[in-house]
């Protein structure tokens, strides 16, 4: 049976073409792929060695026997999997639909998700995509076929954004759907409004979870304008923003609380990525992966 060509949305097709050109221009297939087929450092199952524990390392990898014997904290290093499952969780909340500039946070995260999938396609990784929204989850089963991955990217781009006027429903980063065991979960979305629940720790032990968020200039610096009547889809009300000290103070408090929540959800700096305003998603992602690679290399040496 001849496979039907995927129906590609025009906007998604243009974005894909642009992303692929950029990937080729940066020669990501060679520079980032390295010796391993996977550019994502997942936790392997084959023991390699023990190394001294450093701040930022995963405490779950501490080898308590060696630590007790040598009197210093050591952790195990495993041989990374040659082929891992990648689960991309796109938390499509109405809070993403904002951008003080040309692009919204949703656009940036969609681009990041597409880039991750294109990386994976280049390395023949098995990619599963879960799009979470207030109305439910849309699941794209694991695949390593490039055509199918492209179709999934297209579907992700073509998905109708959530209605910002609808009542906001909190989306938890804990995925309830069945995902491959030991998969690397990449969560793209806004910072959860609530601190992580108790089950988050257990879930993180089962899966390595990377959190990626996109910040707007207003998230970082405040609105800096006003008076301006705006609608907050998260709170579900219309408020008036003013450029005054009170607003700036409120914004600083909110930003600190948000950062605290972000660090509570992803305590390991190697597991969280913030794509800043006017920052290139590909550059941010490449830098993040290189940093992870360096950490892995340093850990092995």
């Amino acid at each position, binding site marked *: 049976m001849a496979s039907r060509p995927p129906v590609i949305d025009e906007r998604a097709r243009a974005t894909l073409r642009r992303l692929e050109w950029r990937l080729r221009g940066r020669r990501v297939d060679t520079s980032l792929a390295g010796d391993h087929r996977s550019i994502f450092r997942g936790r392997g199952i084959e023991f390699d060695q023990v190394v001294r524990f450093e701040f930022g390392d995963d405490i779950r990898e501490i080898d308590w026997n060696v630590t007790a014997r040598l009197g210093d904290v050591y952790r195990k290093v495993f041989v990374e999997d040659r082929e891992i499952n990648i689960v991309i969780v796109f938390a499509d909340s*109405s*809070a*993403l*639909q*904002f951008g003080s500039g040309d692009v919204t946070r949703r656009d940036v995260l969609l681009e990041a998700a597409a880039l991750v999938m294109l990386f994976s396609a280049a390395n023949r990784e098995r990619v599963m995509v879960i799009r979470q929204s207030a109305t439910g989850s849309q699941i794209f089963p694991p695949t390593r076929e490039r055509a199918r991955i492209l179709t999934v990217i297209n579907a992700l781009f073509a998905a109708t954004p959530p209605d*910002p006027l609808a009542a906001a429903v909190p989306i938890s980063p804990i995925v309830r759907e069945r995902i491959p065991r030991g998969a690397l979960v990449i969560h793209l979305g*806004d910072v959860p409004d609530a601190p992580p629940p108790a089950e988050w720790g257990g879930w993180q032990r089962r899966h390595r979870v990377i959190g990626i968020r996109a910040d707007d200039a*207003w*998230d970082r610096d*405040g*609105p800096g304008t006003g008076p*301006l*009547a*705006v*609608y*907050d*889809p*998260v*709170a579900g*009300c*219309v*408020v*008036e*923003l*003013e450029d*005054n000290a*009170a*607003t700036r103070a*409120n*914004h600083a*408090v*909110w930003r600190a609380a*948000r950062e605290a929540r972000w660090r509570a959800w992803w305590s390991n700096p190697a597991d969280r990525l913030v794509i800043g305003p006017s920052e290139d998603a590909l550059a941010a992602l490449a830098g993040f992966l290189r940093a992870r690679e360096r950490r892995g290399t340093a850990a092995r040496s």
Partner: protein
Amino acid sequence: MTGLRFDQPLALLALLVVPAVMLWRHYRGRSAVRIVPHAAAWASAPGPARPPWIAALYAACVLIVIALARPQQVSDDQRVVQQGYDLMLVVDLSTSMLSEDYKGAKGPINRLETIRPIIQQFVRNRPGDRIGIAVFARQALTLAPLTTDHGWLARQVAALQTGLIDDGTAIGDGVGIALLDIAAARTGPPPGTAPGSAPDSVGAFIVLLTDGSNNSGELTPAEATALARYRKIPIYTIGTGRNGMVPFPVFDARGRRVGTSLQPSTLDIDALETIAAQTGGRFFMAGDTEALRAAFAAIDAARKAQFQIRRSVRVSEFFAWAAVPALVLLLLAAQGLRRGTPSPRRPAA
């Protein structure tokens, strides 16, 4: 009549302006609002809620319109003292009433068709009277007892036709029946009329319309006249048609008209004059339509009752009940408007 009413109800139409203004504001006031997630956590002031003074202004407008419509509590102690005549129309329904010696708009018409609209007009002109109808030919009977329901009476007049009674002319019986009806109405309320609602009678009289001479019946015209005189009830007599040979329709066995013949008309003018003179009435000879109309007009003028209607209507105005809250609301709205309007900023030094 007792209840709440508006003295100027048309003013309430101005209430339509209020929803119109609300709709206009609703659609005009729609403006694009930027969507900024988490902005509520940044905002130092609550959102631009709908100012309460607008609601106060709307309410004040509604109350002002209600006040302009002048709500009133009406306590109507109306006591109508209505006085009129008891009058009986005694109409001849003998076949001679079919004689076509009157001229209508489209040609000759018979006597009954001529008197029918004139009687109806006469009844309409006397709304305060109790009027009844007695008809006679060989016998006499009451077609309508004395009543103030003149609409029903007009329908009875419209239904007048010859042939209801065997042919003949019982003038005395007709007058006698009318006298009995008047007497019955005065001793007790007529059927279907609530006690006390009947108008007080200032007098009674009879209008007798005939075109012939008495030739049947149990009472002679003289006896009936004596009775009327005894009861002090004047009788106005109207002789319809002309004496002599008059055109008369000829019908076949099936009742279809087949032609016209000339037949003698014998109106007993002397008897009618006597009846009228002895009872205090008047005799009218109505040889044509105008004369007939003039006869009824003369009777109408001669026996016109005066009505005394006393009305005691207490009207309590509730204007202030709406106007005072409206003024209070207007003041509140004005105060809210002043607060809601930003004052011009002083330029920085």
